[in-house]
């Protein structure tokens, strides 16, 4: 990508494409934040309860900035709340990995680790986007993501290199969730269009750094990297696994039942 000062490339991309591109980032943070919010009051220890809630807050905070921006790009008057609460599952463009159920604590940690490591590469690249607004949101989010990654990687090592029971459970979660990671790095036409304007990164180019980091942590955690799986997950195009609809039903219940409710 070229430096943020050359603003002309941004205007070359149609607003509709930019809207969908920002929505992909926003929805991945929002859905993951909502999943972590489900842990509140249920985590194995008070410290972990607080940690997951803190990370959820950061992710939802990032989603709010991104959704507000997406609404402005769309230009139809939808604000962050309208986009979060009044869209149905096929209109959500999050990565499929983010919507996978929490499972046990180990499974949530595996999901978090894979996405934290991806978000770090993504935000790092986006902080150099030709879209100045996106670049400043990414620069802010990057600082928080580093913290999140330290937490999830730390827990993955403790669980993986822990007891036979904890090791077996996180290995099983890793094997189950690995198939959703391909989607994060295989660009479609929209990703390619954004990369061509310097708004988004070349997704495939993010992969080697992500893999190096994942491998180093897995090795310390004595976990096996699952074999590569080419799987056609299309959460970012609005085609979701069955889990998202259930999650949204809970997340959107109140604002849909009582439109415009405030307290």
């Amino acid at each position, binding site marked *: 990508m070229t430096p943020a000062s050359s603003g002309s490339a941004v205007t070359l991309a149609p607003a509709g494409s930019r809207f969908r591109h920002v929505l992909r980032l926003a929805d991945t943070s929002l859905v993951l934040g909502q999943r972590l919010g489900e842990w509140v009051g249920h985590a194995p220890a008070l*410290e*972990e309860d*607080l*940690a997951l*809630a*803190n*990370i*959820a*807050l*950061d*992710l*939802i*905070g*990032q989603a*709010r*900035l991104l959704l507000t921006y997406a609404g402005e790009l769309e230009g139809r008057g939808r604000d962050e709340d309208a986009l979060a609460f009044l869209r149905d599952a096929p209109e959500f463009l999050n990565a499929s990995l983010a919507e996978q159920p929490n499972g046990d604590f180990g499974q949530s940690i595996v999901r978090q680790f894979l996405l934290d490591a991806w978000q770090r590469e993504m935000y790092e690249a986006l902080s150099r986007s030709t879209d*100045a607004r996106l*670049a*400043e*949101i990414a*620069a*802010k*989010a990057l*600082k*928080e993501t580093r*913290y999140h990654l*330290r*937490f999830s990687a730390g827990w993955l090592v403790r669980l993986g290199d822990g007891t036979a029971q904890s090791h077996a459970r996180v290995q099983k979660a890793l094997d189950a969730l690995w198939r959703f990671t391909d989607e994060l790095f295989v660009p479609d036409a929209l990703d390619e269009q954004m990369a061509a304007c310097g708004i988004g990164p070349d997704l495939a180019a993010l992969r080697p750094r992500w893999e190096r980091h994942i491998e180093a942590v897995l090795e310390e955690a004595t976990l096996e990297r699952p074999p590569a799986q080419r799987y056609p997950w299309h959460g970012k195009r609005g085609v979701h696994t069955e889990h998202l609809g259930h999650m949204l039903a809970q997340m959107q219940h109140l604002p849909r039942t009582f439109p415009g409710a405030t307290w």
Partner: protein
Amino acid sequence: MVTGTLAEPVRHRGLPMEEQVWSVLRSVMDPEIPVLSVVDLGIVRYVRRDGTRLRVGITPTYSGCPATEVIGRAIRDALDRNGLGEAAVDTVLSPPWTSEWLSEEGRRKLRAFGIDPPARQPAQPVTCPRCGRRNAECISEFGSTPCKAHYRCCDCLEPFDVFKCI
């Protein structure tokens, strides 16, 4: 009389007016760490006049910090209450807030409040704000608010908060 107070700022154009605003801002406290003002926190990016309207730019510490909105409202209320009129509060994201912007005064107040201020260098050891010894262990990187981590002193055994370095 209320009208008298409201009319007064008009006579303080330029710098004196700005000084008045900063002095009001020094009285607006962080709702989560009530010993720190928004100026101590280093989140006020600018104070400027936009026609007849005041504009105050603030930077959120963390994207998800719920205090940000409360702080924006508190700033508007305080300026209005002090006769400086209705101000607009802008959110400034870039450059992102860093704990280095915390004032020297703020660092001193934090320590007195029982919170170890953020490290100046990453390697700087955490200091127990109660006994002053540097022998603490991290309980959790996520404490009672997004900006704090949770530690325990291995000498006096007291748990305490550490303001995170970001």
